[in-house]
């Protein structure tokens, strides 16, 4: 049985620690705020210039001057702060916001992400997505496993224009969790494999390996940690 959107959000929330600074994208990622583990309080960043974003206001208390990056009316929690857009993206680009959780149109096995445009079809713009994936140390993607027409969204190579190259660290779909192991050589002295590896680490209950293989275009390794069900 596939995970619900709430369950996907709860899986994303599992890795968050008390005091983390987190940016949540539009859609399923916004549900992460409501699914935090007991005792964990994170500080939500909204890239239009707000840290310490709170829940939606009570009816009648909405304020046109207090919105999130999705242009929704929000509130600011005690301890929150307001800043201009250059400062906001300075903290993003500078890696001070620890985790970005966002949606995807396509993710490739090498960590490439496409989530901003469909040529000839959608002219909206990338907003802050390119900055977020380039600057945030950890990028988690929440997405349906396949597109509405059934085509795989986890692909060998993105065919849609990229938002970022090799930026994704984890993919949480309604069927499975994949982690991207990035062996960037660095000081490990192995001098070898610089290609990130896509690793299946978790299956939704009742989902078979066969189904995952069928619905995933990218090749992947398997290292199941939880809820693993043999095919």
């Amino acid at each position, binding site marked *: 049985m596939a995970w619900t959107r709430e369950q996907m959000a709860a899986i994303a929330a599992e890795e968050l620690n008390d005091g983390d600074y987190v940016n949540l994208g539009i859609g399923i990622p916004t549900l992460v705020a409501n699914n935090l583990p007991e005792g964990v309080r994170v500080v939500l960043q*909204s*890239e*239009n*210039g*707000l840290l310490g974003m709170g*829940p*939606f*206001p*009570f*009816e*009648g*208390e*909405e*304020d*046109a*001057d*207090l*919105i*999130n*990056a*999705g*242009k*929704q*009316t*929000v509130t*600011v929690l005690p301890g929150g702060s*307001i*800043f*201009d*857009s*250059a400062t*906001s*993206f*300075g903290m*993003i*680009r500078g890696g001070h916001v620890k985790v970005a959780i966002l949606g995807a149109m396509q993710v490739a096995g090498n960590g*490439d992400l496409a989530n901003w445009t469909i040529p000839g079809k959608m*002219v*909206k*713009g*990338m*907003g*802050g*997505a*390119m*900055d977020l994936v*380039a*600057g945030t140390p950890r990028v988690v993607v929440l997405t349906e496993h396949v597109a509405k027409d059934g085509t795989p969204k986890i692909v060998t190579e993105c065919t849609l*224009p*990229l*938002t*970022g*190259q*090799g930026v994704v660290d984890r993919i949480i779909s309604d069927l499975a969790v994949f982690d991207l192991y990035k062996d960037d050589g660095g000081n490990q002295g192995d001098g070898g494999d610089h290609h990130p590896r896509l690793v299946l680490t978790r299956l939704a209950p009742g989902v078979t390996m066969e189904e995952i293989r069928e619905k995933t275009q990218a090749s992947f390794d398997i290292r199941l940690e939880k809820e693993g069900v043999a095919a």
Partner: protein
Amino acid sequence: MAKLRATPASALQDILHDGMTLAVGGFGLSGIPADLIDAVRDSGVRDLTVVSNNMGVDGKGLGVLIEAGQVRKVVASYVGENRLFAEQYLSGRLEVEFTPQGTLAERLRAGGAGIPAFYTRTGVGAVVAEGKPHEEFDGKLYVRERGIVADVALVHAHTADTDGNLSYRYTARNFNPVVATAGAVTIVEAEVIVEPGVLDPNHVVTPGVYVQRLVQASNRVKDIEQRTVRPRREAVSA
């Protein structure tokens, strides 16, 4: 200091010309200089290049300049709420330079700070970096982006003193402080205008040095694009 003007139209007098570049503050419809935008529309100036994070919605904000056919080119990060924009863009009447939001903010900041170009990781490997110079620093590849200086910057502030010192309210701040630095001439509309000395110098966000002209904003109802609320808990429990 004669920064204060009587009307938005008089604040824009003698500085608008066809083909000029405007930088405009705001995020969505929040913190937009709506009165100054309306005055630009009324002036009839054409072939504008508009640098702004968004382009308003149909009939609101910068949408009114699109509607009036006054815009030739847009530098923006997200225009998804504007159908007329999509129409004019797809038909080739409107040129668009999509710029990642953080890169746009930094381009304005850099332009205002006398920095002609800078390097960023944002957009490397994506279409926005195509044709731009790249350089490797500490083993990572960066793309060079240019600073932006506009002919005129339009800003919405909450409180201004007559010397042009500005403060903002909540997320209506957004791009306004960086836009204010990036104009050869910066024009500000403010909801509240006070005498020098009323604004606490500790709370001034934009110092008056950046502001050339100032006008009282009209008392319009501010638009909300996505009105999201939560229900009040039951006041009385039995």
